[in-house]
């Protein structure tokens, strides 16, 4: 049995009356590419946001590499509001509520549904800045250039990374001036610069045509192997999902409705009803 890298256990995220993620449990194993699919508004992005610390889930536990990184149970106002499953289950657990940067530091990096590059920065600086987190320096030593060697190392590594992604020729261009597809690739390169073990991709192929989507899939496999990553992605392009993922989780209204290998999921009537539709 493969060891699991990411594990969600009964995760629930409630906004006021809306339960965006409802008692969701899933696992992502080391070295896998796992896809999360489901209709619009099913709660996929919300689930990602719970993992990365942007939201603080209402209930449930998330562990990464065997360590609990998020844990919560209904408190305060939520206590009255939330009466779903497992409401009491985690009351004894110490709540863990990391900020996104802490999660990233643990080794989870992500990309965004709508590209979020740093607009005023060059391609090079976008990647270089992502290395800031792991740099060994403080504000004084950095300002007074006492750690110039560290800076030099960061620059060399950035250049190497860009070289690898075939982005080096754009190094001094503004990130936003790149074509869309390259921006996606740059966003992934930036995420890699944080030296992650797990990469979360939110609709990496949005706005790409089938051909570009195909290339993207190959690219993901390539970096996964090279950096020994685990990949967890949200996607609506079924060609990409079915061809490249090892396993698929399907959610609807925040709940898991199906999971398994692409073949299994594709044939599941629940999934066809809620998501895929009947192909003509």
């Amino acid at each position: 049995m493969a060891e699991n890298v990411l594990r969600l256990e009964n995760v629930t995220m409630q906004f006021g009356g809306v339960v965006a993620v409802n008692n969701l449990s899933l696992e992502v194993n080391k070295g896998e590419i796992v896809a999360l699919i489901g209709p619009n508004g099913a709660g996929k992005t919300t689930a990602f946001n719970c993992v990365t610390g942007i939201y603080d889930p209402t209930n449930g536990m998330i562990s990464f590499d065997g360590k609990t990184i998020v844990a919560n149970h209904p408190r305060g106002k939520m206590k009255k509001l939330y009466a779903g499953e497992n409401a009491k289950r985690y009351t004894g657990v110490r709540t863990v509520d990391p900020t996104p940067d802490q999660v990233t530091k643990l080794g989870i990096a992500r990309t965004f549904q709508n590209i979020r590059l740093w607009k005023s920065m060059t391609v090079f600086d976008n990647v270089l800045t992502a290395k800031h987190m792991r740099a060994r320096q403080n504000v004084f030593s950095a300002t007074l250039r006492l750690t110039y060697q560290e800076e030099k190392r960061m620059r060399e590594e950035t250049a190497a990374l860009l070289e690898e992604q075939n982005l080096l020729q754009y190094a001094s261009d503004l990130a936003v001036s790149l074509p869309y597809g390259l921006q996606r690739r740059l966003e992934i390169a930036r995420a890699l610069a944080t030296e992650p073990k797990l990469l979360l991709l939110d609709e990496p192929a949005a706005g790409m045509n089938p051909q570009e989507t195909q290339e993207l899939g190959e690219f993901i496999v390539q970096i996964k192997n090279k950096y020994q990553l685990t990949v967890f992605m949200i996607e609506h392009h079924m060609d990409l999902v079915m061809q490249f993922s090892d396993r698929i989780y399907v959610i609807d209204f925040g709940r898991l409705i199906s999971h398994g290998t692409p073949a299994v999921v594709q044939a599941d009537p629940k999934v066809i009803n809620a998501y895929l539709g009947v192909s003509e």
Partner: protein
Amino acid sequence: MKKKNKAELWIAFAAIALIYVAVAILEQTMDNNHIIFTVLKKGAIYSLVAVSMNLLNGFTGLFSLGQAGFMLIGAYTYSIFTMPTAVKLTESVYKYYEAAVKFDTGIFVGLICAGLAAALFAALIGLPVLRLKSDYLAIASLGFAEIIRAIFQWDVLGPVTNGANVMRNYLDLTDVKIPFTDIPFPPTLYVFLAAGVCIALIVLLINSSYGRAFKAIRDDEVAAEAMGINLFKHKEMSFVISSFFAGVSGALLAMYQYTVQAAQFKAAMTYELLLIVVIGGIGSISGSCIASFLYIAASEWWLRGLDMGKFLGIDAPNLFRSGFRRFVFSIIIMMIVLFFSRGLMGDREISFAGLIRRFNRRQTAGATKGGGIDG
């Protein structure tokens, strides 16, 4: 590419050195009471605050309007610390109170303490305020500045702050001595040195890994946080550092002005600084400096004649009466804002290579487009 950068850096150094030499020579040869020195001193001090404000507003994207408050803290800390104990105790300044601070320090220690006091305060108010977004942050920081001003005017603190009355007789620019001697240090040069060192530190910071992190926060907070940049830590850092330098510049302003009073550090002062930062170009250090000098020179020197009956040789006491200067000045500002909506420099810096390139271009061909400014 690397080589060209190096060369440019050296040219920049040379140019800055040249400015210093020019100031030193000017001060040795010209009458020291000429208004030009007022402009130079105040301009240098405003450059420092403007740059520190730019660090926060321009580079970190935190829209804060608390600058005047931090300058106030710096100015008061400096004046309280450096006012000779004898003066404090002789009633001449603390007329209505018994001075409570019974020690004094030198100028250097005073300046550092001024910065530290402002930084400390910034660290405290940063905790609640930095959670707020854009305009809410602006108004909250403006509010804090007003609260600080009220506290410094409070008569209960009179023994320390002299209530709402002026602080004076502390060590000012005339008390600066050349180290280990009793020879007075040229005051304008001193202000230039002090402000220059501070600005240099800010520039080094901005070009370091931390500076990039600040810019990342400005461009996209969510992405910055997702890439492992601790938002609060970095915002607080930028806020504290910016306030430190605002405090130092407050102290320099106190030195230059000979007297300080809390009443002067009003919201209007912050607006004025914001105006300078934007006119210079948000995110441009050299822009802030140039705008500071131009702003001070125009408002306090070049346009004075508009107020005093005679301007550019035209004698028209009825038109050029009191208030006309400010009227004209505000029209000029509006023009700049409307026609250079990104400021004089945009977010670029002056670059000597750019200047040279422009110069060459003009000499060789008729190419007109492009500026002397460059990334």
